[in-house]
């Protein structure tokens, strides 16, 4: 409450560097984070308050209060308070432990060290003591402590590289650059200490890709954007140090603002149980009312006189009041229908299941030594009810490793292995790897198995050489030699890394680059190419080119890019090769590989010079500069000669395809929510079989304005329904559609498979209230949904949307900090453990190391938990109905005054059965059948002893029809009946079952005899008045006859019913069981057929994790460390150039970014 009020007050933030007193005025939050819920002082009140918000706890508290009223109380108060205290304590202890771990992790984060500039000195300070306005120093590979304004860095021009995997899941490096005025400060501590700029910026918010602010320093103002901000959660890479000024700290940081609120999760069974409890409570009230009315009538007719006779000296209350009191008494007595033990038992069963998950060796990942872990113990049975799975991509579906798999050079595929029968087999099956004798720098991890390629290289096939040369030349990779003399590539996109590494392994080693040259080693000889132009990548061009002059003086343009784009600009002579290559590309794409087409062009000197002049002109103009440059790029990138294509595998985690397939077979819908690019996401969709070529249609929603998105959604819907209409009677479907529009969350079956792909910007619009339903409707009819470029918060919003409007059980799985909000908002959150970051795991309910374990978690553990829980609940309700309704019947024969049949036993034995449930596996039967069954059993349990006791005398003539004997008889019958019942329900008798079933009967009798023993009576005569009862009653033959008859009468109908049910209406599991039996008899089960290969059609598998702007970085040389300072003039030139390119870069990125985010701001 307080926070939000404060936040709403903060419209803009004013921070002054190095001036804590100044900043303190604004009461900004410091860098301490709290994910924990309680402190030592607040724990008790808050936790208790939360716990008593639960229906059950409140109900029992209410009962307890009733029981404290002596006129009403029919049970001693401790029968309720003991279990209630137990339950509350157990939950409290659990909450406390959870919170303790949260505190621990908070502490760990808060106590991380960072170097802070205090009193003109760099001092080590804990993260939590970092204040807004402080200047801190970061070193390579360090986590960023707060949202910083980058001031200066070790790299030239105040550049620094960050990895934002924790924020958006992308692992490619991003570049941030300081303002030139601040980057001059460098590492000069004294100057940094004097820095007193004032930043005025936006208030804390959760938009990761947007920042607006102004820095005022030395009398001038500099505008700030996202490119100058390093966010908390990023890791500094390839930058030995940088300085930054804290803008947002702790809870105000964008990372923390993006983490959704921890919600109390509960399962649908829990909710069902709550409703059932309410129903039963209503039912109780009915029973209570019946009994109360009965009591009033009885009082009126008989009781009054009888009462006066019994309690002669007492002025009697009127019958209505007596009925009123009776009502409450019965409410207390009959509360055993929903005894508190139900809740305890359910929790214990869940705990047991959680342990089974923890213990499962099949979910143990030996390579990372991580077992699966159930971090919350209350959600197990929900695992058996999942309908939607929301999955992150990077690190969850994929390993985030790119490998060069195949290539097609000049119409020939390399990397495919043919076995003796001429069939294509998987490469990995081949035993021997290539020798790579040609490459001294060969990477041992590189796996590419094709001798033909090696042969071609050795034979000097010019096309192959050109192909590899292109791979070594056309990229934005930076190289570096480490102390051991090994080449280290600094990769901005992992795809490129894979390509360059592949070239390196095949003998074309990229050695080093300067702004003007690229040096590669071609099969042992060093060759230096002059870099004439760099035609950078961007999202529209979908290609990049370099123009180089080789030592022979030839000018060549090397280009790589999306096949669709590149094929359009090929020289007509390439037609044959084009068809061949595009076949190959489709094949690659069909295998889920990421493909790039490769082409080159020979340029003649004159033409190039003219072009270059025009480019320079264009560069210097101010108006329409971008358009002109783009035009020039287009101009030169034509008449290309196709070389071939590459196929890079974004390696899926093991077993992802199988898991996805089997989950889809289980009717679980999988949605991929990723921060990655659309192409990448689609590619992965294909790679893991979520998208297939068999699909009728794939809708892509990528509009940039609200109307566009609406239009696209409408079209997609029309398409969907239109096609559907053509399948069946048009009129009917049309009507259906009409009704559908009225109530848009109605499920409708759509023939055919569809997929929906939507990107983050469109999603922002689509999540608006009026389009939301359209989106959801569309999405739910698609087999696969892929959302790309989504922010962490959007992930959560999508989950919330499905949760809210589909009433479906959702599961979110992810590995990074960007998945935390989604994990928190889904019904069940799963974290991939064993990775570096722990945020996802900490926020999750279950964690394991590999995506494929999801299959086992859901299909095995989930199903078991669910089935067992259902069975348990059924049995429990049955038992309690049987047990409690005996009171009800008894009520009719005791003047409707409340009386407990066996008050002592009642609180002891319901729990005895529950552990026996643990190893049951059967199908669910209806709650009401259980209820009816319970009612029937209670009838048998009551009326058979009633009839028998009516005129009974013991063997020695002493009377046995006293109420204590009756209680013992009924209770014993009940125990035996329910034990027989559970024995019948138990399909698998393990040691545990034997122990618990026999044990519970044994325990019952031992408790019975103990409580009825002389000794315990001697100690507590008032509490245990049943002395000698068991001894006496259970030695009577007729009592045993009664018990036997009761058992037979209550169990036989059930057996008969089940027998007939199996015969007449066999369930699916019955059928399967019998079928299996028959199969087993017939022959051993065949192993499953290996999966057939995907059919491949023409489809581009283009995907490229690349960002615009690197070309300029490279050609300007700004990101190269000045090992040998270039000549003075050059430096000046670069400096001049650099400002221009940096400005360009800033302009471009801010344009795009702000256009996205501005829209988003409004829409979110």
């Amino acid at each position, binding site marked *: 409450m307080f926070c939000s009020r404060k936040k709403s007050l903060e419209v803009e933030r004013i921070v002054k560097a190095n001036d804590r007193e100044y900043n303190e005025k604004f009461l900004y939050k410091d860098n301490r984070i709290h994910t924990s819920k309680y402190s030592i002082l607040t724990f008790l009140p808050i936790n208790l308050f939360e716990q008593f918000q639960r229906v059950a706890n409140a109900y029992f508290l209410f009962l307890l209060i009733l029981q404290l009223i002596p006129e009403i109380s029919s049970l001693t108060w401790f029968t309720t308070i003991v279990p209630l205290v137990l339950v509350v304590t157990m939950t409290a202890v659990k909450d406390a432990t959870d919170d303790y771990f949260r505190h621990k992790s908070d502490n760990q984060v808060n106590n991380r060290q960072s170097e802070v500039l205090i009193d003109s000195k760099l001092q080590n300070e804990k993260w939590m003591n970092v204040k807004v306005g402080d200047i801190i120093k970061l070193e390579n590979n360090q986590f960023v402590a707060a949202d910083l304004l980058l001031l200066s860095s070790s790299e030239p021009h105040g550049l620094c590289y960050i990895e934002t995997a924790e924020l958006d899941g992308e692992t490619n490096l991003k570049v941030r650059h300081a303002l030139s005025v601040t980057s001059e400060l460098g590492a000069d501590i004294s100057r940094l200490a004097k820095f007193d700029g004032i930043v005025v910026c936006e208030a804390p918010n959760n938009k990761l890709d947007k920042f607006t602010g102004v820095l005022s320093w030395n009398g001038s103002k500099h505008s700030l954007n996202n490119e100058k901000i390093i966010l908390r959660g990023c890791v500094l890479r390839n930058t030995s140090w940088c300085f930054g000024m804290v803008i947002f700290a702790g809870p105000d940081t964008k990372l923390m603002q993006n983490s959704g609120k921890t919600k109390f999760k509960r399962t649908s069974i829990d909710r069902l149980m709550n409703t059932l409890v309410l129903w039963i409570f209503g039912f109780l009230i009915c029973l209570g009312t019946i009994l109360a009315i009965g009591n009033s009538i009885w009082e009126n007719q008989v009781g009054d006189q*009888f009462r006066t006779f019994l309690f002669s000296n007492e002025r009697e209350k009127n019958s209505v009041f007596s009925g009123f009191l009776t009502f409450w008494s019965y409410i207390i007595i009959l509360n055993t229908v929903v005894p508190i033990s139900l809740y305890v038992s359910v929790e214990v069963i869940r705990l047991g299941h959680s342990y089974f998950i923890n*213990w499962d060796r099949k979910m143990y990942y030996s390579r990372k030594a991580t077992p699966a872990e159930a971090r919350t113990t209350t959600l197990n049975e929900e695992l058996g009810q999942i309908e939607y799975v929301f999955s992150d991509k990077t690190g969850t579906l994929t390993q985030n490793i790119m490998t060069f798999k195949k290539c097609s050079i000049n119409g020939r595929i390399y990397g495919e292995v043919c076995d003796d029968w001429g069939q294509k087999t998987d490469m990995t099956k081949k035993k021997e790897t290539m020798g790579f004798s040609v490459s001294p720098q060969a990477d041992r991890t590189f796996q590419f198995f094709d001798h033909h390629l090696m042969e071609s290289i050795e034979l000097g096939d010019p096309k192959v050489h050109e192909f590899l040369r292109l791979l070594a030349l056309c990229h934005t990779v930076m190289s570096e030699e480490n102390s051991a003399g090994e080449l280290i590539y600094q990769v901005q996109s992992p795809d490129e890394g894979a390509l360059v590494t592949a070239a390196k392994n095949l003998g074309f080693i990229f050695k080093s680059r300067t702004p003007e040259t690229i040096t590669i080693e071609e099969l042992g000889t060093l060759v230096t190419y002059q870099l004439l132009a760099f035609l950078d990548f961007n999202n529209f061009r979908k290609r990049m080119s370099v123009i180089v002059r080789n030592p022979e003086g030839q000018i060549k343009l090397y280009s790589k890019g999306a096949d669709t784009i590149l094929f359009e600009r090929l020289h007509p002579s390439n037609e044959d090769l084009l068809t061949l290559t595009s076949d190959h590309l489709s094949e690659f794409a069909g295998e889920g590989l990421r493909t790039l087409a490769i082409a080159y062009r020979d340029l003649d000197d004159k033409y190039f010079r003219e072009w270059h002049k025009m480019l320079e002109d264009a560069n210097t103009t101010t108006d329409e500069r971008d358009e002109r440059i783009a035009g020039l790029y287009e101009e030169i990138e034509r008449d290309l000669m196709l070389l071939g294509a590459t196929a890079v595998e974004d390696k899926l985690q093991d077993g992802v395809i199988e898991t996805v397939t089997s989950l889809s077979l289980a009717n679980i819908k999988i949605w991929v929510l990723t921060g990655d690019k659309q192409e990448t996401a689609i590619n992965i969709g294909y790679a893991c079989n979520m998208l297939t070529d068999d699909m009728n249609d794939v809708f892509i929603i990528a509009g940039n304005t609200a109307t566009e998105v609406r239009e696209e959604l409408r079209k997609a819907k029309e398409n969907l329904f239109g096609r559907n209409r053509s399948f069946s009677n048009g009129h009917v479907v049309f009507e259906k559609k009409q009704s559908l529009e009225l109530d848009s969350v109605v499920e409708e079956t759509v023939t055919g498979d569809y997929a929906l792909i939507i990107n983050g910007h469109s999603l922002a619009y689509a999540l608006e209230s009026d389009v939301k339903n359209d989106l959801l409707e569309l999405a739910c009819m698609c087999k696969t949904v892929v959302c790309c470029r989504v922010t962490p918060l959007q992930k959560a919003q999508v989950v919330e949307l499905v949760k809210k409007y589909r009433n479906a059980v959702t599961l979110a799985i992810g590995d990074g900090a960007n998945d935390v909000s989604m994990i928190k908002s889904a019904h069940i959150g799963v974290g991939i453990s064993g990775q570096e970051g722990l945020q996802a795991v900490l926020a999750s309910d279950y964690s394991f190391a590999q995506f494929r374990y999801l299959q086992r978690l859901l299909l095995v553990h989930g199903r078991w938990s669910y089935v067992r829980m259902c069975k348990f609940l059924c049995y429990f309700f049955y038992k309690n109905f049987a047990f409690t309704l005996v009171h009800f019947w008894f009520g009719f024969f005791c003047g409707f*005054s409340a009386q407990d049949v066996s008050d002592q036993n009642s609180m002891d034995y319901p729990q005895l059965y529950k552990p026996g449930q643990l190893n049951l596996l059967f199908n669910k039967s209806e709650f009401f059948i259980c209820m009816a069954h319970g009612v029937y059993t209670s009838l048998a349990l009551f009326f058979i002893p009633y009839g028998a006791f009516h005129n009974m005398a013991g*063997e020695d003539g002493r009377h046995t029809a006293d109420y204590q004997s009756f209680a013992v008889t009924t209770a014993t019958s009940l125990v035996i009946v329910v034990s027989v019942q559970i024995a019948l329900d138990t399909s698998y008798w393990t040691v545990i079952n034997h122990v618990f079933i026999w044990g519970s009967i044994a325990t019952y009798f031992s408790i019975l005899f103990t409580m009825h023993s002389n000794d315990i009576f001697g100690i507590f005569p008032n509490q245990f008045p049943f002395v000698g*009862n068991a001894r006496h009653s259970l030695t009577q033959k007729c009592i045993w006859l009664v018990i036997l008859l009761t058992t037979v009468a209550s169990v036989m109908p059930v057996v008969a019913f089940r027998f007939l049910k199996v015969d007449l209406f066999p369930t699916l599991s019955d059928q399967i069981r019998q079928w299996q039996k028959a199969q087993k008899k017939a022959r051993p089960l065949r192993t499953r057929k290996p999966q057939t290969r995907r059919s491949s059609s023409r489809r581009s598998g283009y995907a490229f994790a690349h960002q615009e702007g690197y070309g300029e970085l490279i050609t300007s040389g700004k990101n190269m460390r000045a090992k040998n300072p270039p000549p003075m003039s050059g430096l000046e030139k670069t400096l001049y150039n650099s400002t221009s390119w940096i400005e360009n870069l800033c302009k471009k990125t801010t344009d795009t970014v702000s256009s996205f985010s501005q829209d988003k701001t409004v829409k979110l």
Partner: protein
Amino acid sequence: MKRKCQDYKSRLPDNTAMKQQQLPAFRLQLSANEILSGFFAIGLFCLGMGIILLLSAKSIREVEINYTEKCATCAKLREDATNFDKECNCSISFYLPQKMEGNVYLYYKLYGFYQNLYRYILSRSNIQLVGTDVKDVRNCAPFKTSDNGLPIAPCGAIANSMFNDTIVLLYNFNSSTHIRVPMVRTETAWWTDKYVKFQNPTFQNLSSAFAGTAKPPNWPKPVYELDEKDPGNNGFVNDDFIVWMRTAAFPNFKKLYRRLHRIGNFTEGLPAGSYSFIINYNFPVGRFQGQKAVVLSTLTWSGGSSLFLALAYLVTGAVTLLASFSMMAVHLKLKERKTFFLQ
């Protein structure tokens, strides 16, 4: 490295059958034949049991005489509580056509007496009754203390409402000779009740043990005068008292009053002939529209008359057999379909 290995090892879940949920299990899957034969067996057993019980129930001789109406004058007298000190006797004659062999038990039976009323049941003090603290009357409301503030012993509503008719059985040997049938008044209560649950306070003199306490308001005499002849049957350990204190489960109940002392003419049991009950009518049932009866009964191996149990067994047995026949029919008819399915 070594430690790391150990760490790895320790994180690998144990491969025990329990933890991997792979305990060897016996699968209880009854075949149709087993179930059907089980049903037949149970049905036959129940039927047999029912017949045995029925026969034994038939062998029981039982005489029940409801004397609520027969002693109308006395009943009227007792309607008015102020006449509590007036004695009223009532004689009921009856004829026993057949002799009652073996042990014969004399019961009194009450109709419409709700001894299972909740407040009623609680209104007693076990601590007092076990003799620990004769003045403990905590749970005895509304009969805790007498008007002059003394704790009541035995306190509570159960004790206060004790059945206090005395029933004497006379054997009319001939029209003039009336022999009092010898009856044993002890060993009618459970052993545990008599020797564990109920104990007199330890004092040399029973009356001094109860000094400082008052008698229950409805009682004509204090508890230590229940049976002055037999100290082992006096005070709290009086059998009649103990039997009354063991509250009945249902509003209609019979409680053991006397056992036949098998001496003289009665060694074999009760001979056939004319008898009469002399009842000292004290217990007012008219006030709550109840009834009372006196019952003479013999027993069988399974105790008292269990006609209901016999019938219930018969019915259950018959139903089970019927069910098993119909189940068999259904099963046989569907067997063909099933085999088809199995293919």
